[in-house]
């Protein structure tokens, strides 16, 4: 099964890439991911102030400033995984540091 993890939080912590690299929780998580060989791709996203959302309604393209949904938490990263099943995806999601203050949404890939 392929899954996409949406790494979400409210951006109050917003550690830099360098800070994340030395964060022990993040390091343990990355090592576990490496060991599982589950990662198929992934990206970290710029904060939500830089986001643009595109919607097309009745043939008209609507471009708006901001994220897709105005909620407390925003998607801060995307990860593409190949896992045995949902339980493995949950295990990887739960190990991500953002899961501790934000949340990680798991979406099965529609293939």
């Amino acid at each position, binding site marked *: *099964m392929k*899954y996409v993890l949406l790494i979400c939080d409210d951006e109050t912590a917003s550690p830099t890439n360098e800070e994340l690299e030395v964060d022990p929780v993040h390091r343990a998580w990355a090592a576990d991911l490496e060991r599982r060989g589950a990662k198929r791709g992934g990206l970290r996203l710029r904060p939500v102030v830089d986001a643009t959302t595109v919607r097309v309604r009745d043939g008209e393209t609507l471009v708006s400033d901001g994220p897709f949904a105005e909620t407390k938490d925003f998607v801060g990263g995307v990860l593409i995984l190949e*896992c*045995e*099943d*949902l*339980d493995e*995806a*949950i295990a990887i999601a739960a190990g991500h540091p953002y899961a501790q203050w934000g949340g990680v949404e*798991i979406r*099965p890939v529609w293939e």
Partner: protein
Amino acid sequence: MTRPDPVTEPADDRVRAAVDAAYREEWGQVVATLIGMTGDWDLAEDCAQDAFTAALATWPRDGVPRRPGAWLTTTARNRATDRLRRDAAGAAKLGQLAVLAREPEEPPVPEEIPDERLRLIFACCHPALSFPARVALTLRTLAGLTTAEIGRAFLAAEPAMAQRLVRAKRKIAEAGIPYRVPPAELLPQRLAAVLAVLYLIFNEGYDEGPEERRALTAEAIRLTRVLVRLMPDEPEPRGLLALMLLHEGRRATRTDDGVLVTLERQDRSRWDQGLITEGVATLDQALAMRRTGPYQLQAAIAACHATAPEAASTDWPQIATLYAELAKLAPSPVVDLNRAVAVAMAHGIPAGLALVDELDASGRLAGYHLLPATRADLLRRLGRDADAAAAYRTALELAPTDAERRYLEARLAEIARR
């Protein structure tokens, strides 16, 4: 053709009874086996249904098989093979299922059909499914209730319940919810989720309600017995079974003419001693494993009540201790409230009342009718009638069922009279 038996009861009735019994005993196992083979929940249910229909048609003619479960599983499996062969996508799937190629005509010996219900239980109760979906799936696939029956039990329209089941099965397939017994590191948490579903089913049936809703307690007990058999080394399923049996044993006396009757005033001679004895024995087996858990503690508390010959001889100090342990293991304001009552009974009303007031001040039980109801009861015992009446009135505004409102009204009237 069926041949009526002129000597005994009509053969059709006996066969019907045998099929009904097999349905209750074997449905979950047949479905579980078929899901294990095909990975297709709908196909599994359809083929299980076909097998029972075939039993109704052929058992009157051929007699009831010696091992109905094996007969039903083989028939359902053959049916699945036929259906998969018929469509192209299925034929490809069939190629992967070596197990289906194995001489399907020959009835397997029971040892060859492993009990796959445990995998089914854990899949149905997976935390990625919503709680109502877990309950509905468990009752449909494991207990064999029809969609209409589940709908009536949960006061939901049949189409809504059908849709809930369809969505849940779709999520299992599309999100990759595994069909397996969780590995050791996940087991405690996942087992707790399974037990929570079973206990919820029990509690749904425990309150006053239509017959089909009340039958949920029996379904919950039956499913928990299966779980105990399948996980004999786990103490908590036994703890839950004990808890259910002890509650069920007192059920007949819980209400009188639609009015709630408190434990203290229940007619103990009408308690079901058979269920209580079995509950206590089951609890003892669980406790002997020496790994305590929230259900064992709750069952131990229920046992203290159920084995007291009269209300006055209840071992309240022991109950207070058990609630304190429970509060440590599974913290909840409701447990704290119950502990307050036990402390009041064991160590004096003022000590218990202080704990209730503390809870009240914390706001953790705001809107919960049993908080003012408990306060009212303790105030009444202290003779503070005016305060008690005020608390009863608050409780009345919040009480969710008629049985409870009638009880509270009766108590309020009692104070007014004295």
